[in-house]
């Protein structure tokens, strides 16, 4: 097995066993594997390259279908690679598009884009697909720009927290009371960044049964933010004094809804009942071009029941059914704004953002 194949397999097995947790960590790992794959890949035209990347993507997504950032990273890389390829070949390949224009495509993609009808430009000649004499020439010519494209994605991922929180002080004002829950690295960075400019208070719900909120409270208070740790049960009682609810996301869907750690839905519903704004901090890589996942039961992912009702309860464990979902689905109506590293967006813009970030044909890898 080639080394790049091995790294794909090793990541896939890590994903399957949930040894990598957190969307950003997964995205980073995926990206590193893709970089390796692309650098070693042998291809003589664009379609071959795309297929290589996609097959790696499929393999990883299959390993852990619930970690959406894997697929998103692959889609993003594909999008960037195509862009680089377009600029490198100056649209010489675009003329093939009208040939495949059909009613179904028309429905799916809308009117043919202007650039596809652009006059054929003289190809630079350095990049020649399917060169019979030297099948590797295409890959050789393209690889530097491809690596650059992947590096761009990597850079973006590495600065994601900084970029999400760069405007934190515009969202959190002095003496505000913020409610958050769970442990989200993005929210943590956001709140800490705001604390450089503002004095405010955070109420953290401990978020049973994983109690990520406790970790969050610890981290925020050690950064000098006035922090109150409360049980989940008091969210409603305290909500009347909360100015803003700030949540993290697991995956954001095309309709503007999202998956977030359990407890987010009760907090968001309580906030709605008090007309308290709900703001979600998330890196752009969490935006997922999937439609059929946001469902109250569709993708419920259940955690270990023993964290809810431990074995110390004796025979009780055998007698009762324990439900311990990982995520809640939040409808777009419950969210006021997404703060991403790519600017602030209302839920209704996510759809458009997706179209700009990924290519439609990659929605199904």
């Amino acid at each position: 097995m080639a080394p790049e194949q091995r790294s794909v397999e090793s990541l896939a097995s890590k994903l399957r066993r949930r040894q990598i947790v957190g969307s950003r960590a997964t995205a980073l790992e995926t990206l590193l594997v893709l970089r390796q794959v692309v650098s070693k890949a042998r291809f003589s035209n664009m379609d071959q390259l795309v297929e290589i990347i996609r097959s790696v993507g499929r393999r990883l997504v299959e390993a852990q279908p619930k970690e959406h950032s894997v697929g998103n990273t692959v889609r993003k890389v594909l999008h960037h690679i195509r862009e680089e390829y377009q600029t490198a070949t100056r649209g010489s390949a675009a003329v093939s598009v009208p040939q495949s224009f059909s009613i179904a495509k028309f429905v799916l993609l809308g009117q043919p884009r202007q650039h596809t009808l652009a006059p054929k430009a003289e190809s630079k000649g350095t990049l020649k697909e399917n060169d019979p004499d030297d099948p590797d020439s295409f890959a050789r010519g393209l690889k530097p720009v491809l690596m650059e494209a992947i590096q761009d994605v990597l850079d973006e991922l590495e600065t994601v927290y900084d970029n999400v929180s760069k405007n934190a002080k515009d969202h959190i004002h002095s003496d505000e009371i913020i409610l958050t829950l769970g442990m989200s690295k993005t929210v943590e960075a956001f709140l800490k960044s705001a604390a450089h400019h503002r004095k405010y208070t955070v109420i953290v719900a401990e978020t049973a049964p994983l109690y990520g909120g406790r970790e969050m409270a610890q981290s925020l208070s050690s950064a000098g933010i006035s922090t109150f740790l409360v049980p989940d049960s008091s969210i409603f009682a305290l909500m009347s004094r909360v100015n803003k609810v700030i949540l993290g996301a697991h995956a954001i869907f095309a309709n503007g809804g999202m998956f977030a750690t359990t407890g987010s839905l009760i907090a968001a519903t309580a906030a709605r009942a008090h007309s308290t704004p709900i703001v979600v901090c998330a890196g752009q890589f969490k935006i997922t071009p999937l439609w059929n996942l946001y469902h109250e039961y569709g993708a419920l992912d259940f955690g270990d029941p023993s964290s809810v009702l431990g074995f110390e309860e004796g025979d009780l464990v055998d007698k009762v059914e324990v439900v311990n979902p990982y995520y809640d689905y939040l409808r777009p109506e419950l969210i006021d704004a997404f703060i991403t590293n790519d600017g602030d967006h209302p839920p209704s813009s996510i759809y458009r953002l997706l179209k700009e970030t990924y290519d439609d044909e990659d929605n199904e890898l």
Partner: protein
Amino acid sequence: MSESSSNQAATQSTSFDIYGTYQRILLNQEISPPLAAILALTELIENSPAGTMFELVTALNAGADAMKTKSSNPISLDAGCELFIAFVTLFPHDSVSFADLKTKLIRQGQQYADEALTYRRKIAELAVSFIKDGSVILTHSYSRVVMQTLLLAHERKRISVFVTEARPRGLGIKTAEALTAAGIPCNVILDSAVAYVMEKVDFVLVGSEAVVESGGLINAVGSNQIAIIAKAANKPFYALAESYKFHRLFPLSQYDLPNQNARIFSFPRPSPSRKPSISGSLSNPSSAIDSGSIEAAPTTITQEQISKNNPDVDYTRPDLISLVFSDVGSLTPEGVSQYLVGMFAG
């Protein structure tokens, strides 16, 4: 080609019986009106002597109009025509000969119709992932795509179905018979019992005549009230729509639909001639029997009169719809309008 031939083309295309063709294609149980319309239009191209794009589009528009005026329910048919004509106008025509282009277009139309027949399966697959084991589903009237979804769901999960009777056409009975034959527990409910049954229902699943630009839905009359009740009960309302039913239309109200007809809900004005007879019958009941027997006949209201005075379809506002499942994905109502804008408002 000269101008005279274009005139000739127009006359010839009218001689081609497009509505008959449409009806003939529709005999195939699998083909729905928009697809039949697309196929009828491809046959029109085949029979059309049009030599330029302009002529062809004129002929297609004329054909579409002919079908629309003859059809009793032109909304979904119109969606098909519109899609095809928009496609034809946007089709890159750098072909050497126009005849070549026409064959290409015909082939495209037929290909699409073939492909479109798989859409219901695609939609069913999509929708089934939203159906939980043990779901109780409310559906309305009869819809092929809903049938296919329910049958597919039945293969994988336990479901039970309430179906409205869906007056005036009573197609709910057809749905119930088909479902029962397939072994799905099914109950026909009165259209007036929707609110009663809603508490037991997990979600509502309806087909569609058309999905319009607002993201709203046009479907067999009664859908709107089901959606309102579902909203009030906080139950999801899902619509199934093949993408060829996306229709560029923006109804502002129920009465802003294209098939409006003044007959519907017009209050019958008591004819002046009857007035004396009514007063006479009141003052003199014995004489009214003879003179009023003919006059009084209209006071017994027949089913035909009711259905004649009622609309076939109604419009459901987008905010009442949870999701639209289509072959291009499961869309929010806004998503539908984004597709429509992409196609027609470029």
